[in-house]
């Protein structure tokens, strides 16, 4: 179960992005970026397995469910997985600020690239504000998502907890 926890949690987030939350039009970019952020975070958490191919699969699912062009969120997730894999493992908080900075830089590049890609896809300049707003919000949300995933991994379903329970018995 723990082995599939990263993929399952991101899958859950993909389904959550498709649900009609009633967010305003400017905030529609936030939830998909949270999915990319989760991919990035899982790749930096030591021992968590989310291969790039898995990230692409999850991104494709997001594309299929969103009705947008196929390959867009897959590409975003793949970039997130690649950078997350190269950013080095998180050492329980000591590298947290560095990873936050890396995510901030990455999401800035992703937002610009995503805006250009979307504009190229439709042959017109699309509104940049929702993308910029989503990127800024994702930077603010990074600690919540990162510590949330660490809690999910180590707090409830992690092997450490299982060992504690076995030791207690």
């Amino acid at each position, binding site marked *: 179960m723990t082995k599939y926890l990263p993929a399952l949690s991101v899958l859950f987030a993909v389904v959550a992005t498709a649900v*009609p939350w009633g967010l305003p039009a400017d905030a529609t970019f936030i939830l998909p970026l949270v999915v990319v952020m989760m991919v990035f975070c899982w790749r930096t958490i030591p021992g968590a397995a989310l291969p790039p191919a898995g990230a*692409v699969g999850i991104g494709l699912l997001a594309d299929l469910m969103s009705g947008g062009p196929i390959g867009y969120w897959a590409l975003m997730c793949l970039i997130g997985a690649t950078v997350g894999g190269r950013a080095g493992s998180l050492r329980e908080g000591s590298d947290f600020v560095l990873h936050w900075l890396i995510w901030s830089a990455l999401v800035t590049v992703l937002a610009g690239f995503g805006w250009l890609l979307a504009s190229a896809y439709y042959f017109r300049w699309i509104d940049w504000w929702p993308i910029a707003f989503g990127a800024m919000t994702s930077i603010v949300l990074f600690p919540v998502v990162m510590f949330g995933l660490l809690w999910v991994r180590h707090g409830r379903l992690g092997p450490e907890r299982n060992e504690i329970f076995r030791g207690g018995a």
Partner: protein
Amino acid sequence: MRERGSPLFRRHRPSWRAPVELLSFGLYFLCAVLLVLSRIGHGAIADARDGLVDLTAPLLEVASIPAIEARRAIERGRLYAAAFKEVDHLKKENESLKQWEWQTKLLERKVAHLRSLLNAVEEPGLVYATGRVIADARGPFVRSALINLGRKDGVRIGYAVINGDGLVGRTVDTGESFARVLLLNDLNSRIPVLVGPAGVRGLASGDNSAELKLNFLPDDAKAYPGDEVYTSGSDGVLPRGLRVGVVSGTPGALKVKPYAKLNALDAVSVLFFDTPALQRADPQVAAAPAALSALPTDKADHPATASASLPIAAIMEHVGAAGLPSVGGQAQAER
């Protein structure tokens, strides 16, 4: 001993491994190819999307329940917080509506008299089905929603979708049990409209923002902020007279503020309005020999499909107590 060097530049892999790098390159290439195929509208992509959405529609329907309930709870909370103010507002509105009711009855009688003088043919009532929004599309590309009505309910590509407030969009994709609705504010949405009492012709275009651009108005157009905007039907796809929104913005840069809250849709109705243009776009449209509005022949007794004269109670039973979707829709459909 502390390991030296920034983790940013520290690689997990001790050496270059060709298969991994190749796989990574292959994945990037795959994404690029899929984007191109998606742009040119390859059939396999559309089929895969339809298949997957059909498969996940029940899951999305279940997953959307907590979100919709949470949204309703927030709305209820807001309503309770402003209950007294709301009661005063509703009292005033009720007085105003009583006046309107009296005027409407007078006008109805006049219209009926004039129609009888002209020996005018009765317009066919529109048939519709009511369903729920089960998923939203997010991102920079699309503003669309999935609804739990599909081909099995008689829904085809190009049908107008409305709710109690006004026009929501039109169907652009249909599966067996779902349909995708392109919302008014999507980049690809273009709605021919009539503006104001003068009925000035224009085009309401979406740009992914909350309001629509109002383009192609004549130079001397008498259109002002506050004017009502409704469909002209000149595209041969949407019925004429559906409420779209109200003109906002400043002269020279007029916009349309949709009546329907496009970011918080719940229950919506699909109008079965078959036209020759739709039959070209979606060959599976059942031909309607006598009227533009046609009940799907194989689904005539389907509970989700209702004629314009169907009692509201039956629709309520289908959409749930909180739906209240089609009171305005019925009125619009009969305009």
